[in-house]
């Protein structure tokens, strides 16, 4: 297990969900499922998050928010689309205001289908996301060789 996989911090964003998946996400924090035992914290802050967990399809109002949240997260980061709406747009796919799944706006790494997605499936997705985080970390390290982490002021190219 790498450093990241022992302390994955989540950022949960509701792009346009009916709240069904949101409640299931919160369910994971309750005593029955207790994801904190894996070190998961549901943080509300993109600057401190490792995994971006999005529920619901993207509409024209939430698209810039999703992009901004994604851009504010430090590398390495993983995007988790929870629920069929977040994966493809679901039953709302043909609606005039819906763009479709999250992957129409930002790259999605892991898809958790379901309507609503079951807590077991969400935890499964988080566990996969955690493995992917470690892989991404290794990739960054391999790219940079022995150099330091990329850094800089927020918004700059570096």
């Amino acid at each position, binding site marked *: 297990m790498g*450093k*990241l996989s022992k302390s994955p911090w989540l950022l949960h964003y509701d792009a346009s969900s009916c709240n069904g998946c949101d409640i299931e996400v919160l369910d994971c924090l309750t*005593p029955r499922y207790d994801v*904190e035992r894996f070190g998961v914290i*549901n943080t509300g802050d993109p*600057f401190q998050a490792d995994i971006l967990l999005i529920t619901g399809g993207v509409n024209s109002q939430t698209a810039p928010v999703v992009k901004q949240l994604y851009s504010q997260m430090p590398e390495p980061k993983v995007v988790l689309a929870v629920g069929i709406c977040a994966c493809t747009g679901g039953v709302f796919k043909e609606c005039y205001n819906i763009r479709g799944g999250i992957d129409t706006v930002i790259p999605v790494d892991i898809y958790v289908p379901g309507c609503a997605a079951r807590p077991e499936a969400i935890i499964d997705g988080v566990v996969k996301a955690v493995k992917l985080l470690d892989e991404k*970390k290794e990739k960054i390290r391999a790219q940079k060789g022995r150099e330091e982490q990329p850094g*800089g002021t927020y918004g700059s190219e570096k």
Partner: protein
Amino acid sequence: MKAVIFVIGYLILAPFVGALLDGVDRVITARMQGRKGPCVLQPFYDLSKLFSKQMIAVNNVQLLLNLSYLGFIVISGSMLFGGTDILMCLFLLSTADMFLVMAASSDSSPFANMGAAREMLQMMAYEPLTLLVAVGFYLAAGTFHVGNIIQSAVSPVLYMPGMLLGFMFTSAIKFRKSPFDLSTSHHAHQEMVKGITTEMSGPTLAIMNIAEYYEKVLILGIFALFFINSSWWSWPVAIVFCLAIYFMEILWDNVSARLHWKTLLTSCWLVTLLTAGVNLLILILMK
């Protein structure tokens, strides 16, 4: 020589003790809520992860201000554990907090700025009592010098039980515990994202966390000062009392909800007046 050993011990061990206490805190909190909770070493995993993350800074000065926060807390703690002036130690602690306020004010996030404003309110709430505690130690032991306070014949707490009660009340602010976790919270349910730490990420947040661990040990050190006297057995007694007080803070954290800032100010000042104020009056009349 003893002072040097204590200072070096504080410098090296305090972050480990603080992080371990934080881990125990998280497990106890989880058990109180009927959950299993994370591993006791979770804060160490969190720290090592934060240091391995990409450094996103909203500006170049925040890291420096956070380092100053850490630096001043470390100096303040070293003064306490080195047995020097307690008044100076408490002044430095407030100075350290001002650097944190500046670090949060330096970015453009409204949440961080609001957190900074609330942090200053919290300082206003606990500062009177903190200073009265220093005066209390002076009246009880006849000196501000920590090295001499611990040589008193009886524990200072016998002269200043009210001050201890008041300090237990206001130290919930310092431990960032509910109901006083206005500026930022260890729990995720925060109405203004993460408050003062909103725009701190990766290594910057890790430095802030390490500073908090140093501060935690420093505050527990002041608690220990209430119980330590010239006899050797007062030291283990002080440690047991410190752990008991820390447990009570965790319990209080779990049974109370966050307060409005006005309630925070009035309750802290009222408690200061009723506990430390009355205690001080009695001490002055006794001496």
